[in-house]
């Protein structure tokens, strides 16, 4: 179980990106949503250890992991899929799957992982993870790495961002499939209604605060009101 206690994160000029977040995530499929700039990606990076919070504690299965590095948290079972996948000159899909699994995978294992994100291992396994791959392909490989790790907590930062409609449709299937098969906790930052519909719980972040948390039915009613308020008058007129 992951627990965040009074997590705050300030940057220069005393701007607060996260304000006193308290949250318990205990299994299932959790979606974090809310307007852009609301602190969602920052929260994911705080959990993965990429950003150190200004204050507060992160507890994983009863252990305080606030002071642990990215590597230590990864070893304790946290996986994090970047919103913008990283490109590597020279490293292939095979290399990255091997590093994700911590061992050499058989072709059968590689094929299972890649086919579950809609890629054929024969075509992709020896491709370099560089700019020759499309945004959708990179995104699928990013997700494949998380599947290959199979850890108890998997964080996905806007997996739908930057991919085309066709890729998106198959991506939804990937998460629906994960929901059925994965035993650990899946946390997805998303704006997509179809992803939110699949979630067991939805968390809404706005202006760095957790403003709503609950099941789809509990959150959905005032979700739109909640996240659209605060838009300036001129913008509202023009929408």
């Amino acid at each position, binding site marked *: 179980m992951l627990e965040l206690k009074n997590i705050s994160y300030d940057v220069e000029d005393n701007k607060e990106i996260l304000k006193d977040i308290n949250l318990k995530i205990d299994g299932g499929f959790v979606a974090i949503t809310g307007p852009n700039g609301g602190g969602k990606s920052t929260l994911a990076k705080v959990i993965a250890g990429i950003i150190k919070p200004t204050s507060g504690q992160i507890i994983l299965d009863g252990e305080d992991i606030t002071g642990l590095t990215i590597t230590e948290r*990864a*070893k304790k079972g946290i996986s994090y899929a970047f919103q913008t996948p990283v490109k590597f000159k*020279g490293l*292939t899909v095979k290399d990255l799957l091997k590093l994700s699994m911590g061992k050499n995978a058989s072709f059968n294992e590689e094929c299972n992982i890649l086919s579950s994100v809609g890629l054929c291992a024969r075509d992709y396994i020896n491709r370099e993870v560089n700019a020759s791959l499309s945004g959708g392909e990179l995104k699928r490989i990013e997700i494949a790495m998380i599947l290959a790790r199979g850890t108890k907590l998997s964080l996905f930062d806007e997996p739908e961002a930057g991919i085309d409609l066709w890729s998106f449709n198959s991506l939804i299937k990937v998460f629906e499939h994960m929901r059925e098969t994965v035993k650990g906790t899946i946390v997805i930052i998303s704006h997509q209604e179809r992803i939110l519909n699949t979630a067991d719980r939805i968390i809404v972040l706005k202006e760095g605060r957790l403003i709503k948390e609950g099941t789809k039915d509990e959150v959905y009613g005032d979700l739109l009101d909640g996240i659209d308020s605060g838009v300036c008058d001129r913008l509202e007129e023009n929408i």
Partner: protein
Amino acid sequence: MTTFEENLLAEVADIHGVPEGAYNIRKNGAAAGRNTTANIDLVTKEDKPGIDIIIKPGTKNESVHIPVIISESGLKDLVYNDFYIGEGADVTIVAGCGIHNCGDQESAHDGIHTFHLAKNSKVKYIEKHVGTGDGRGANVMNPTTIVYLEEGAYLEMETTQIKGIDSTVRETEGVVGDNATFIVKEKIMTHGSQYAKTNFKVDLNGVGSSANVISRSVAKEDSKQEFISRITGNNECNGHSECDAIIMDRAVVTAIPELTAANVDASLIHEAAIGKIAGEQLIKLMTLGLSEAEAEEQIVNGFLK
């Protein structure tokens, strides 16, 4: 041969035991084994150290290994090897050099290789340079490669220097004829206080000639690298050179591209990028459970693969 020498041979020329096909092994400045085939002749030069490698026209799917190893500290070896590739031949040539220096004196190997490729011949040329030994003596290698490509000929050169060479100045020159192609892929890693300089000079003289020079390098610690590429387009041609370097610690990398188009239909491009390992690459691999040092190693190994 000692184990060190056998390991060096395996590393620079992928030779384990007795190699197949034509070979000439040079050890500490003298011949240490030779084999010719019906199509490939190796002839010792009479006027200077080195051999002529003569490949008959139409020879296909054969290979020549001409590795050099130096295990005597303080030896300075200079060798001239000339390759004559017959019309329509298609062969692989492997010419590595390994120095194992456990003494205090400088060991050096200067190999001067000249390739004459006849019409429509094709060569894959693989050259690996490795230095080992824990002595204080420096390992020095200054390879020179000169390539003449006749009409429709194709030469692809893969040159690798990954470790242990303290100082190297590598000269590579190509004269490219009609519809001929010259490709160079260079990989270099330097560390400690090593110095590596690469000097490419390619003249695209023929109609439809092309050259592609790609250098990937990693400079660590206090090492220094220079990459100079000069491509001249004297006819309707395509030239491309690319220098991509990762810089670490206190290393210094200089890239100097020079393109001269002397024909209105010459199309020449140079790309150069020097920078440290991207932070996001390290972070990504750390989220897979690698330490920062392990992540760095994976990125460097992949880059130079």
